[in-house]
């Protein structure tokens, strides 16, 4: 196998092949050169960041081995530095008694706060002094003129920098004394060439080639929000199926949101706790006088109560897109049509992993003399096929303004279960007749976030509106 190496990699291999080992430590076999990343950086003049990347690339190509090593180095503490400058306490003690023996008190006052007991103990251990008992108390006298000992050599060899030191008795004993030696632990990476790495001939490598197999960093694209991506896909799919988009306001009168859809004014769905009413705002123009009269009559006949036009004027944030559809149909009265409406809808709910106060809904309707319920099932099945959902079945359900009503169930392979998606049904005559719509109207639709959650593998719907940049940058479609 021939290798294509990046310039950084070449420099690292070259340095390792040069065969210098500053620490002269035996490796697994003696011919292996091992270098720390820091040394590689020093020798090649590459930055540590470049070295780390290069070593990682080489490791993946199995050209180098990397082992972690913990390195201990030592520097002098407060007392150590003092000893470097003025000598160890025991040396200073000996110097005091060199000429004549002195009493404990005399020595204690001359040693300015040094650990007097330790000084005596070490000087005694080294055989430098004698302690004589006299009538005037104990006196310390010189036993023999001391030469420089190993503790002193260690201190001067460390000096005022940090040094690597082979284990020895003096190191151990000085470390037991307070504040003389500080130990530093450093984790480093030791790099060595593998057998393949050793035999790479850098001269023979094609210098113009680049490593086309190497890993590359992730880059982030600016993109359409994942939820809008799904919305666009759904909008396009409706258009492909022959539907034309209509739009309408998010704020609506209760008339179009509820009354026109035969929802009685005392229905629980119309209460404040489910629907957002706009504080002290009433619709100025509701609908045509005929539309109002006919809807009012339908309510009186069907639900037997006093229908109040003031209640119908209250402004709400639309609870479904059906209000847009029904107004369009009431105004245009088409004999044949395929239209759809898509956008935000609102429910006064507690926000949770599965509920939002504001979410997106799509709803399509087919109007036609000859349209059938089976046709609508077929359109819906085709819709699901286009967005990648192939296992679909239908169950009966209930919606207040359609009859019969069905819900579609879609099998999700990843979750291994059937999931309820769009609903469908035929608009009740109690809805269409008062508004002068004479042809059957078949409607279908539902929430979009649910589909987007399947597509992006989310189990918390709030994620769509968190706008978490790391998620926006990396979110991927799973179907």
């Amino acid at each position, binding site marked *: 196998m021939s290798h294509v190496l990046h310039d950084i990699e070449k420099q690292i291999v070259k340095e390792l092949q040069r065969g210098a080992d500053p620490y002269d430590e035996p490796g697994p076999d003696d011919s292996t050169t091992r270098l720390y990343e820091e040394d590689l950086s020093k020798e090649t003049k590459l930055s540590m960041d470049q070295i780390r990347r290069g070593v990682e690339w080489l490791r993946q190509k199995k050209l180098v081995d990397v082992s972690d090593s913990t390195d201990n180095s030592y520097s002098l503490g407060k007392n150590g530095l003092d000893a470097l400058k003025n000598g160890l306490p025991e040396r200073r003690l000996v110097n005091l008694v060199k000429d004549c023996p002195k009493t404990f008190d005399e020595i204690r006052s001359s040693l300015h706060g040094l650990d007097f007991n330790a000084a005596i103990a070490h000087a005694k251990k080294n055989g430098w002094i004698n302690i004589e008992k006299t009538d005037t108390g104990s006196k310390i006298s010189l036993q023999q003129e001391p030469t420089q000992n190993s503790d002193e050599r260690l201190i001067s060899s460390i000096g005022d920098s940090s040094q690597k030191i082979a284990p020895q008795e003096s190191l151990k004993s000085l470390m037991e004394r307070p504040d003389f030696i500080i130990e530093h632990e450093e984790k480093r990476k030791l790099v060595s060439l593998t057998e393949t790495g050793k035999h790479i001939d850098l001269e023979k490598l094609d210098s113009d080639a680049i490593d086309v197999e190497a890993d590359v960093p992730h880059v982030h694209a600016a993109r359409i929000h994942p939820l809008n991506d799904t919305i666009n896909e759904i909008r396009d799919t409706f258009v492909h199926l022959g539907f034309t988009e209509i739009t309408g306001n998010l704020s609506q009168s209760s008339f179009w949101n509820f009354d026109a859809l035969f929802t009685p004014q005392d229905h629980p769905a119309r209460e404040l706790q489910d629907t957002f009413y706009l504080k002290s705002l009433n619709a100025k123009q509701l609908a045509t006088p005929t539309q109002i009269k006919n809807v009012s009559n339908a309510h009186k006949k069907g639900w037997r109560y006093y229908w109040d036009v003031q209640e119908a004027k209250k402004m709400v944030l639309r609870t479904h897109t059906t209000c847009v559809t029904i107004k369009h149909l009431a105004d245009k009265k088409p004999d044949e049509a395929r239209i759809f409406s898509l956008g935000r809808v609102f429910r006064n709910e507690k*926000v949770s992993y599965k509920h939002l106060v504001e979410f997106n809904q799509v709803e399509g309707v087919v109007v036609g003399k000859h349209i059938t319920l089976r046709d609508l099932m077929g359109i819906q099945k085709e819709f699901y096929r286009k967005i990648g959902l192939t296992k679909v079945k239908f169950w009966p359900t209930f919606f207040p303004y359609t009859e019969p009503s069905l819900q579609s169930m879609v099998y999700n392979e990843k979750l291994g279960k059937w999931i309820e998606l769009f609903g469908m049904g035929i608009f009740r005559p109690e809805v269409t007749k008062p508004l002068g719509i004479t042809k059957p109207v078949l409607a279908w639709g539902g929430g979009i976030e649910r589909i987007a959650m399947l597509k992006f593998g989310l189990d918390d719907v709030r994620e769509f509106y968190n706008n978490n940049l790391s998620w926006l940058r990396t979110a991927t479609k799973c179907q």
Partner: protein
Amino acid sequence: MPVVELNLSRLQKLVGKNTDKKQILDNLPFLGLDIESLGRNVVRVEYSPNRPDYSTDFGIALGLQGILGISKGMPRLKIRTKGNYEIKVDSSTSKIRPFVTGIIARNGSLDDEAVKQIINMQEDLHFGLGRKRKKSSIGIHDLDNISFPLKYTTTSRDHRFVPLNSTKESSISEILHDSEVGRDYGSILGQSSKVPIITDAKGQTISFPPIINASLTTVTTKTKNILVEVTGIDKQSAEDMLSVVVAILQGAGFQFSQLKVSGSRNSTPNFATRTVTFDSGPVNKILGLNISNSVLASCLKKSRLDAVVKSKKIQCTIPRYRFDIFGGMDIVEEVALGYGIDNLKPAWPASVHIGEKNPTSEKLDSTSRLMTGFGFMETLNSTLTSEQTLYEMTNRDSSQIISVASSKSQEHTILRDSILPGLLENLSKNIHETYPQKFFESGIVFSKGSPIKETTNLACVTASEETNFSEMKAILQSLLRIGFSIKCETKALSNHALFSQGRVAEIIINRKTVGYIGELDSKVLENFRIRTKVVGFEIKLSGLIFD
């Protein structure tokens, strides 16, 4: 949707004919019953609010028997008219709760599970059909402690009796003030000094509708005979409610005797069926089927209605408790359910249509494409937001605020009139991510105007140490030029709450101000905990690139 918990082995027994559990579970969805959760022997199902008869396993068993073909057609209802059960209505009730109706059910037995099911039914009826007991409410009593005739009348608020689940007498006022049901439903009676009451021949109080029954008539598992009374402000709704109770109690094995009702505007309930006659043609047409009259009649019977073919027409008889059936389309649904939704095969309509996106969506699409091309990430924020984000943190003028009533969420109380504050919030949530950060959003904003105006705006921000005003102006200019061949100017503005003084301009197109551009004010940024420089603009797209 309401939920009922069913014991599977009990349901098996009710359905009969050795049905197995799998058969039951497979068929529940085809009655419109969604399985919400499933235990070893317990299943919780969601049922439609228009089918209160499915609030008990008795009602669901009837439906299952139908689609499984075990028992078809309408369950026959027999009511003995003999017997001296009567309730007399005093005209004083007419001002407060004018109607009462009821039935005597005898020789049944109620075990614990049956009592649980009936309580579930009662709660469902009170909530839905009864509109939280306001329109109508039910009382169920042990018949054996009652002497007839009964009297439905009114009494004063100091009237005393022992209420259900209590051993000591209380006054009406105490019940309304001290008990949970009293506090929940007392408002139905308003400030009226007289309240409705049902007493028996001995003068004993048996019920204080719509609040609570008397302890005297408590139903237990030993109860064999019961009295059901329904009171309300709408006669038909009270009788609707009673008809459901009767259908359920029939399923539980009770036999019925009439309760005569007499007095102003009231009458004895008659559980009359309705008959509709129709052609099979329109039914077949809307379903996309071609089934014979006899098959169609059989489908209706599987939906527990009666149907016969008479001179090429279908004659369908609907029991009293199926008041959810309004007209023709409801019959179509019953046919579809009897036929089996699974047997309806999806088809493809012959007509050809050419679909079209709305021009506004098209234009917004190209705006988004350009903005991502300029390197801006799209974010999405709620149009329903909080005063804190929209005004307090941005120091903006809140005099034209549009609020919603009684929001359950503190973060969603007012409609946004600008998009930029939301983008600042997005930056604020991402201060730990790498910079530069560039966001845009297009969407609806609201303003007051007869009664409310909705316009579509576009806003974008760049957050980075190196960014500056001209970078943002370059984006704005290029977007409008490349996307829509529009030339724009920027004109210095003396101050704007969001932006730094001396670094803010109005965006002018055809001599009209359509938005603002500038460097965000450092105090505003501080409020959002943003530590880098931010530039941005917001521009009104409505009236500019679409209507």
